[in-house]
């Protein structure tokens, strides 16, 4: 129960952080970080997939409502969750993670490079969907790709930063 409340509180903080702070900070025109993805990365892998999908959709819609981007965040979150589910099913061994006492993929579970590939590729999927919905034009394919690559790396750095802060506490 407390875990659930903690998750909801974390989600709310992430949503407000995204909508009211990161939305209005212009790093460069090529970097638009979205660190709220950390919520889905840190959810236990044995959670019901329908629940995860619901959480993702609700979080996306909430951020959409707060920031005024109707549908963009939620659509990309749904795609991200769907892809993450199939990736977890195929490439992540939940039992071995449980033996290590972990419920999601971390830096130490299968080596840092594994974690890097896993995170960045999933973030890439989300960002590609997000910027495709945002630009919505074949003409700006290069711009979408550039934004996706830059922002994926930046989002990953943000997520690492949040992990660090969390650990120190």
């Amino acid at each position, binding site marked *: 129960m407390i875990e659930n409340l903690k998750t909801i509180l974390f989600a709310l903080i992430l949503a407000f952080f995204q909508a009211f702070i990161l939305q209005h900070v212009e790093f460069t025109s090529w970097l638009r970080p979205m660190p709220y993805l950390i919520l889905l990365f840190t959810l236990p892998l044995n959670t019901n997939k329908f629940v995860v999908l619901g959480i993702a959709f609700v979080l996306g819609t909430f951020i959409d409502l707060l920031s005024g981007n109707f*549908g*963009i965040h939620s*659509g990309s979150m*749904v795609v991200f969750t769907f892809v993450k589910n199939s990736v977890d099913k195929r490439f992540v061994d939940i039992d071995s993670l449980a033996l290590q006492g972990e419920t999601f993929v971390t830096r130490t579970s299968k080596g840092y490079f594994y974690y890097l590939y896993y995170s960045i590729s999933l973030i890439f999927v989300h960002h590609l969907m997000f910027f495709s919905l945002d630009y919505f034009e074949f003409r700006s394919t290069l711009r979408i790709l550039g934004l996706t690559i830059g922002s994926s790396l930046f989002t990953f750095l943000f997520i690492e930063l949040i992990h660090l802060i969390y650990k120190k506490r």
Partner: protein
Amino acid sequence: MWVILRWIKSNSYPILALFLFIFSLNQVLRYHIYQHSLYFNSSVSFFRQVDLWRTQITNYLNLREQNTALFKENLALREQLKNSRVFNFIPWDSTIIDTFSETNSVKQFTYHPAQVIKATTTLNDNYIYLNQGEKHGIKKGMGVFNAEGIVGIVVTTSSNYSRVMSVLNSNFEISPMLNRLKLKQGIISWSGQSSKLGKVTEINRTEPIIKGDIFVTSNYSTLFPPNIPIAKVTSIASKNIKPYLDIEVEFAVNFNALDYVLCVEFIKNKELESLKNND
């Protein structure tokens, strides 16, 4: 039914994900002005393109009817043409001539439309068969032509069909006119080799005919109205021993693609013939 339900149950996760994604996409298209306009512009242009394809196809299917209608209209216009009429000029005032009123002009030619049902081009004596006969007013000796040029002369008729001696016939001869030189000499006939090529004989070698000249029907002829194209000059040769030019011409009509033709009748033919016979 159960199969469908079972399928939905086993695939409920992707279906739900797809449903949520479509819901989001719908929101994107509905509430974002930029995406909304992009989407609707492209869908509108797509459906315009589909409409265009459809009209092209249906136009093609309607071509036959359109063709018939145009042909009838052409016929009506041709009846009014100056070539088809002779003018009775008013003797006491020659400066004012109303060339278009019915009272001043008399119809000289009448036209009967017909369709080609069989035609040959490869024999020595080629004939064309029409789907109109005596019942429809086709008579022996009428000239046959289409929009491109002259086609032949009616030689036999039955009640429903008629046989036309094609230009591509060893017995066919016609005397042409060359408007550029006001020349009314020569005889055009088929050279017997290709369905396109004919020859012109009995034109004096001093006549300055050049390549590209077009022979048309003469106004001396009672078979055809004047100024209907017959053939175009493709090569000219003159030999010193012969008094005439050897001219090769290309026929104006494509005899391999005949469809609608007009049979033309000179109304006062009998009167003129009797005058000729009196001599």
